[in-house]
């Protein structure tokens, strides 16, 4: 069920990523016209994903890891994904990222801001331990303010206890 859920999130993100790609391409080419953006599309990879972009990270690596209740420990799955993120960052040495820390709704606003920050810091420290320069990684906590998944149930909460790596 969790996998199915993750998969549907992935699809949604992927669709929206595709939808925004032409605009992003236009921006990066410095042109605002739609004909140009179609032109620049052909310069990107066959999938329409710009190498080193947020979409690239989401589709080819994964942008998020999940945490246990009231925990900022990185489990084996999280470490594995972050190892891939570190490798991706080495490949794209011009990219810097912001690590967002998030919590589920079952805590208070202030405590969750602190916990979200610890989650983001845990990810940052792990990336640094894998050789990513600390100057390329910053953190921000949203506490329980920006859940990824709506619902007051264990499934939603486990999806919301997360860090999200975003290309700066």
């Amino acid at each position, binding site marked *: 069920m969790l996998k199915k859920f993750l998969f549907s999130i992935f699809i949604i993100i992927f669709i929206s990523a595709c939808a925004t790609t032409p605009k992003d391409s236009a921006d990066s080419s410095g042109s605002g016209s739609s004909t140009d953006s179609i032109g620049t599309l052909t310069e990107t990879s066959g999938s329409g994903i710009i190498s080193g972009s947020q979409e690239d990270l989401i589709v080819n690596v994964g942008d998020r890891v999940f945490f246990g209740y009231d925990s900022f420990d990185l489990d084996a799955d999280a470490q594995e994904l972050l190892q891939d993120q570190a490798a991706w960052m080495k490949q794209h040495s011009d990219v810097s990222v912001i690590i967002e820390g998030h919590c589920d709704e*079952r805590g208070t606003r202030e*405590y969750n*801001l602190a916990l979200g920050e*610890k989650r983001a*810091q845990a990810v940052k420290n792990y990336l640094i331990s894998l050789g990513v320069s600390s100057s390329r990684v910053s953190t*921000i*906590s949203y506490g329980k*303010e920006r859940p990824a998944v709506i*619902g007051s149930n264990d499934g939603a909460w486990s999806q919301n206890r997360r860090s999200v790596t975003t290309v700066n």
Partner: protein
Amino acid sequence: MISKNYLNIVLSLIVIYFSSMLNLFALEVTLTQGSVKPTPVAVTDFYSNKDEVLKIGKNISQVISDNLERSGLFSPLNKKSFIQDISSLSNQPRFEDWKIIKAQHLISGNVTKSENRIAVEFRLYDVFAQKQLLGKRFETSENNWRRVSHIISDIIFERITGEGGYFDTRVVYVAETGTKENRQKRLAIMDQDQANHKFLTDGSYLVLTPRFSPNSQKITYMSYVNTKAPRVFIFDIETGKQEIVGDFPGMTFAPRFSPDGKKIIMSYSDPEIGNSEIYILDLETRSKKRITNSTAIDVSASFSPDAKKIVFNSDRTGRRHLYVADSNGKNIKRISREGGSYYTPVWSPRGDMIAFTKQEGGQFYIGVMDTDGSNERMIAKAYHVEGPTWAPNGRYLMYFKEERTAEDGSGGDSNLYSIDLTGYNERKIITPLGGSDPAWSPLMH
């Protein structure tokens, strides 16, 4: 923005005592006795022989009546049952007429107006003792009639209950709209009775946890106005100006003013430390002093009213508990003793209790305990309640309640509630949008 007129209500008041408070009766009502039967009171329209001014008198009476009713301690009688008319009452009360309808107290008054100024005079009577308990007269500009009504309510409340008043106060909170994953939040302010509601920010960025300064002129809160660096800010209500509180690298949050208003106690997550610690920032020198030093989360600090102690939330023993320390961080002592997780401790303005949020068995509670952690009791319970704030008399609390969210995105509404310390008289605070993170101001007068 708040109008200057409303703010600068340094009511240029001429207060005349009609009768001094010679007889200090034993308290007719006390708030600490569990359930209290509300005292029947007759709040009459304030009299004027001019129709135009009579309308002001009716409005004043309504505000006083609503305040007293909302306290849960008074039951204002239906005006239709009144026998004596307000014209004759303005000369002399006929106590028998008020005894018959079982009014224990009678509140009368009159209003006169000249140009834009009004003079409001009120009297409070003990019907059964057949005597006037007090009377006062206020002069102010006409558009201050609500303030005067609240001040009169406070005087009446104090005289009858022996507790401090709390009606001439305001509430700052976070107004909420939109779905939970992208909720828009705006600072908003209103009178304690929900009148004079105003938005202070436009909702284009997240704002959290506003708290009043001791003089109620400023608000400290957390803002994501810089989307990459959420920080503690101070908002000046009169000017609308916002100012960052110490621009350090790393997140600052969970701010509260010190009792003298010269400092802010807050949490700071220094990237060098990678953990939230409590700091006190001096607003004059802008220097910050670290108060806690542990590898655990230290958050949600609140000063005692004498500023000698602080209470805060920490998970240093694994579970989330409440700790009291000297305000320099020395002599840290855990005060919460029971099961569950404790959060958001707030010292009562009277100094005698600490209110908090508790989570246990899938439920959230608003509770209070003595400052040493004894006499813990819960006064509100729901799927999610959070963030108590004290009325200035230390006898009422406000907090917010958030509903469960269904998978289709419905539900999840957040609203403000008030309750008295006995756990009775829970009232929903009606706001234009949803509400969270309320903070009750000190008395404005």
